[in-house]
């Protein structure tokens, strides 16, 4: 008897949890196929008998969607590559080397996590302007080209790699690059995947930097681009705005679904130790 009670209460809790986290997305998708009248309706409509898929087409055509999409892809891929190139060596150095100033440098890395973007975007803009990089891809890549969080996490992971392995490799006169790629990285695959995923999500969805650092449409990314959807129809087009947001969510959603297995595996190895 107690078993049935427990099972059914678990069932109820599961459903509640599921709903709490899923309903906003359901609402988002639902709104994107409604007409504006249905959006404003009250009591709210939970189903739509005549889904208006043309909202997606309107969203797509009202702004330079493909162009923003291209920019988002370029910036995200480049930032991921940049972070890979800057974070891995730095984490390795902090994890397995001793050098003068290491403490201070690592301290500085940690200190950067305490600096809010709103505090520094003005000087960053000025620096990039003077370097004539505003409205080029570099302006969006450089400020995000590295990650303190990534260095910290990867360093932890590298510190877990058995010393003996590295010593053996060094005895074999293996170069540091080789050690990094053939030993450290493979052993930290899960952490790297996690970092890559979080990086991808963060950069793809970034709104603040993309907004304050661009003054033309040239390298504007999707999150900023779709905010101009709110200007469609004199500002009364929430359904179109949501359609645009759904379109923007799709690539990550697909990437997430595909990388499912990797992610859970990654998280099951990570856990900060």
């Amino acid at each position, binding site marked *: 008897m107690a078993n049935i009670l427990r099972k059914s209460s678990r069932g109820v809790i599961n459903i509640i949890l599921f709903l709490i986290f899923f309903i906003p997305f359901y609402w988002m998708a639902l709104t994107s196929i409604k007409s504006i009248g249905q959006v404003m309706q009250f009591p709210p409509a939970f189903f739509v008998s005549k889904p208006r898929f043309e909202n997606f087409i309107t969203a797509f055509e009202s702004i330079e969607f493909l162009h923003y999409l291209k920019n988002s892809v370029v910036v995200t891929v*480049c930032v991921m590559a940049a972070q890979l190139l800057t974070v891995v060596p730095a984490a390795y150095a902090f994890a397995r080397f001793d050098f003068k100033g290491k403490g201070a440098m690592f301290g500085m890395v940690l200190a950067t996590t305490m600096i809010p973007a709103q505090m520094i975007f003005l000087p960053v803009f000025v620096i990039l302007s003077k370097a004539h990089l505003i409205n*080029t*891809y570099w302006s969006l*890549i450089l400020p995000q080209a590295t990650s303190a969080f990534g260095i910290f996490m990867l360093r932890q992971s590298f510190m877990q790699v058995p010393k003996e392995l590295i010593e053996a490799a060094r005895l074999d006169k293996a170069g540091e690059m080789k050690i990094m790629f053939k030993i450290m990285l493979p052993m930290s695959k899960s952490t790297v995947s996690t970092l890559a995923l979080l990086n991808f999500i963060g950069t793809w969805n970034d709104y603040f930097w993309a907004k304050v650092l661009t*003054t033309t449409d040239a390298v504007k990314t999707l999150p900023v681009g779709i*905010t101009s959807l*709110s200007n469609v129809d*004199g500002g009364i087009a929430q359904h179109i705005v949501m359609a645009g947001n759904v379109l923007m969510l799709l690539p990550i959603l697909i990437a997430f679904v595909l990388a499912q297995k990797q992610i859970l595996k990654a998280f099951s190895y990570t856990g900060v130790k």
Partner: protein
Amino acid sequence: MKHLAKRILCAVLACAMMFTATACGGDDSSSAQGGGETIELTFWYANSVDDYVQGAVERFNSTVGAEKGIHVTAENQGAYTDVDQKLQASYLAGTAPDMTVLEIASVGLFGDGGMLQSLDELAAGESDETFDLNDFHEGLLYNCYVNDTLYSVPFLRSTSLLYLNTTMLEEAGVDPASITTWDSFAEACEKVHRETGKYGVSYPINYWYTEAFMLTNGGFPISDDGKVCTVDNEVSRAVNSYWMDLMDKGRAHVYAYAEADKMTSDIINQDTAMWFSSTGGLTSYIEVAQENGFELQTAFIPRGTQQGTTTGGCNIAMVAGMDEERQAACWEFMKFMSSVDETVEACISTGYVATRKSALENEKMKQWNEQYPQYEVALNQLSVAKGRPNNPGYTEFQVEITNAIAEITVNRADEDATLAALERKGNELFNE
């Protein structure tokens, strides 16, 4: 194998990065015309007027621009606050655009700071046919000057208006034309609520309207010399108690500005018979009315002891520091954008007022006004309109007064304490 793949991937990505970053240093949106001497200019604008502005810029580029070898690229920066913020940042970096719109309240800030090019000489060099300052409605010029120097030219200008869903009003037995004073306004609200159960008016509390309402009762938040804050007085209290009364009787839907979406929803669902908005939204509202099956009219802000309204919108200004040739080129663009034909186009396309007096004689405008008399109301209101305050501290005050009035009317905070605190803060800000 995996690490090799990773290395190759890195290399490929690095190359891709270099390639894309250098080859596409942003899209090359400015195409040279006929090679050689074309002057490329950038113009920043704001808000959802892309259709009109991009169209106007194209018209310029293909006529005057083509003739004189000038090409303008217009970029939408978002809201007025975004324009201001980017303007300052880019000015700091030395990469400011050549021309920009400025919300009329910001002209003082930028003009005073030396960021704008004075237009006195350029304007003086024109004849009455080519550019006549006197052809602009007086009410609009107030915010073009800073300390008696001309810094900007009227562009997309507005007044606040009363919008009426005449279908709903008539259903409730109200004659729309009778709503001229605050008394008749209250009566109309009462009838609408009684007959239909809906709101008479839907109003998100905002400084722009608070100013207008105070004006119609003989007051204003700031003194004419811009030095004294005048909110803690009978006029404020009269306005506040008027609205609180309507709210309590269920005749008005009043809420904080952060919830302004409610107004849109009320309009579309026809839950409100009246609302206040800028004339800049007129064209959109007419569309909304047509789509939702009701008739739309516009009217003056109701009269209290006098008629009054606030103005808004933007002017076009030129950034300082350019050589004479570039200045002349910018001036051509500014003249074009404020010409009679363009101002008529702008009015029809958006609802902003036609800034030129002679626009009234324009055939296209006359026909349009006959068909849609709603467009003339804002124009007629100009004669009783008050310009935006020039004091740089007023920007911060706008937020304070919006919050304070909402506090009092929506959240029923203590009026005396709140108004006193507001006035103190205002005096501080105005005299920094």
